[in-house]
């Protein structure tokens, strides 16, 4: 019997396709999400809008809260760890969450690296702003990708930006020769050499990395390039990411969810959009129905009626670059 395999981790992500994953901060909200037809909940102490407002360091949630939510619903429960925080991830795996979101919504823990997710039995979802981030996360073992968008803003523009960037990159990749694709892999791999380069510079040495020296989790740059190249060839062949790809970061209305499905998302994460709105149950239900009926504008219209006020939202240009969560971890 085999557990924790790639097939099982990617398979879990496939089971939530075409569905809506909702952020919840307590048992009551988790039950509302389940009642509304969520395919999973993301258990956390504060939704992104409140994390943004609170400032300070945002960390993994209290395991007791996550366990309470796991006990209260029959649908899968996900939880977030900080980018690169291997120990938070191990804690979440130990309490048995169904999927870990290595998330930019929390404060970054490792300035150089993301978690090497292939070492875990639990599946991971990771945010990505573009194809490069997505391919790096998939090579590291992410079973699922989501756009980063800009969490806690109720503003869809960044999620659209990230999905469009990814779709266009995939289209361009399909027109490339294998040699050109290999060049892309080499470029994408540079990110893993930053630590080694920084250290060499600090020693007064040229900032170059030898292809055969280990730079991340025992892998040499050459091995990483090779790994990324394989993922890119998969993307080229399939014309899409080889894992489930959701939209996240700014979904606030049924039409937002439908828009992201139209752009090719396999499903939708809704963070602050539901429980920061006037009428969470009705809005949650409407977002589920709009995700299913994204190709039927008349249904999206019907479910969008009389939902009360959506979350207030923030204009992206009003957030300083330093406050943007999407730049955490590339």
């Amino acid at each position, binding site marked *: *019997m085999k557990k924790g395999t790639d097939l099982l981790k990617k398979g879990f992500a*496939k*089971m939530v396709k075409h*569905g809506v994953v909702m952020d919840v901060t307590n048992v009551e909200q988790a039950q509302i999400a389940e009642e509304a037809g969520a395919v999973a909940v993301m258990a956390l102490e504060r939704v992104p809008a409140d994390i943004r407002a609170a400032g300070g360091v945002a960390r993994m949630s209290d395991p007791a809260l996550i366990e309470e939510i796991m006990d209260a619903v029959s649908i899968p429960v996900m939880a977030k760890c900080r980018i690169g925080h291997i120990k938070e991830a191990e804690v979440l795996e130990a309490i048995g969450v169904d999927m870990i979101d290595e998330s930019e919504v929390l404060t970054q823990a490792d300035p150089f690296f993301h978690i090497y997710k292939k070492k875990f039995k*639990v599946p991971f979802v990771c945010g990505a702003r573009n194809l490069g981030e997505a391919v790096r996360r998939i090579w590291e073992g992410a079973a699922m990708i989501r756009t980063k968008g800009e969490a806690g803003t109720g503003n869809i523009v960044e999620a659209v930006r990230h999905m469009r960037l990814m779709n266009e990159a995939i289209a361009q990749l399909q027109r490339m020769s294998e040699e050109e694709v290999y060049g892309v892999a080499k470029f994408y791999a540079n990110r893993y050499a930053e630590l080694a380069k920084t250290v060499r510079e600090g020693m007064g040495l040229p900032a170059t990395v030898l292809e055969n020296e280990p730079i991340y989790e025992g892998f040499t740059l050459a091995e990483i390039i090779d790994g990324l190249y394989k993922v890119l060839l998969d993307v080229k062949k399939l014309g899409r990411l080889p894992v489930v790809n959701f939209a996240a970061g700014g979904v606030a209305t049924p039409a937002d969810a439908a828009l992201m499905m139209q752009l090719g998302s396999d499903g939708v994460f809704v963070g602050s959009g539901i429980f920061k709105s006037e009428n969470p149950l009705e809005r949650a239900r409407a977002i589920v129905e709009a995700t*299913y009926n994204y190709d039927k504008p008349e249904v999206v219209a019907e479910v969008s009626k009389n939902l009360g006020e959506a979350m207030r939202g923030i204009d992206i240009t009003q957030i300083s670059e330093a406050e943007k969560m999407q730049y955490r971890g590339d």
Partner: protein
Amino acid sequence: MIIGILAIQGDVEEHEEAIKKAGYTAKKVKRVEDLEGIDALIIPGGESTAIGKLMKKYGLLEKIKNSDLPILGTCAGMVLLSKGTGLNQILLELMDITVKRNAYGRQVDSFEKEIEFKDLGKVYGVFIRAPVVDKILSDDVEVIAKDGDKIVGVKQGKYMALSFHPELSEDGYKVYKYFVENCVKK
């Protein structure tokens, strides 16, 4: 042979691929009108609570229940074909079984292994937060697959329910063929 796949939520595309691999034509069934022209229906893996709610709201529950379509349910599909789960959820109630959801535990307890399948011998089983049959409520239900003492595959007339995901394994096409030979053609 046109096999429909209930396309509300879950791993619809994986079933589509597997059906083609088994040599049949696949058709996504998103709405009531898509039921037209199909010879059988597959209810895929996904979240049974979410699928059940949307099936009911969009008229698919009644329509499918009152059709004489052969149906294969995998994982969430098994749950939806059953008469009860012990939880308050919307079901098709077409098979005389009750199921226990997440019977093996959470995702970290998901597993893959070979299991014994009637007439097919060994079949590769991919179990993801899988349900198992809890009680068999009538003699019309035949056990077709077991994992140790757990019942992971049952057949009742034109209906078949599996705990695992043939759509995710290399040899899954054998299971589709079994379904077509034993539930659709008979």
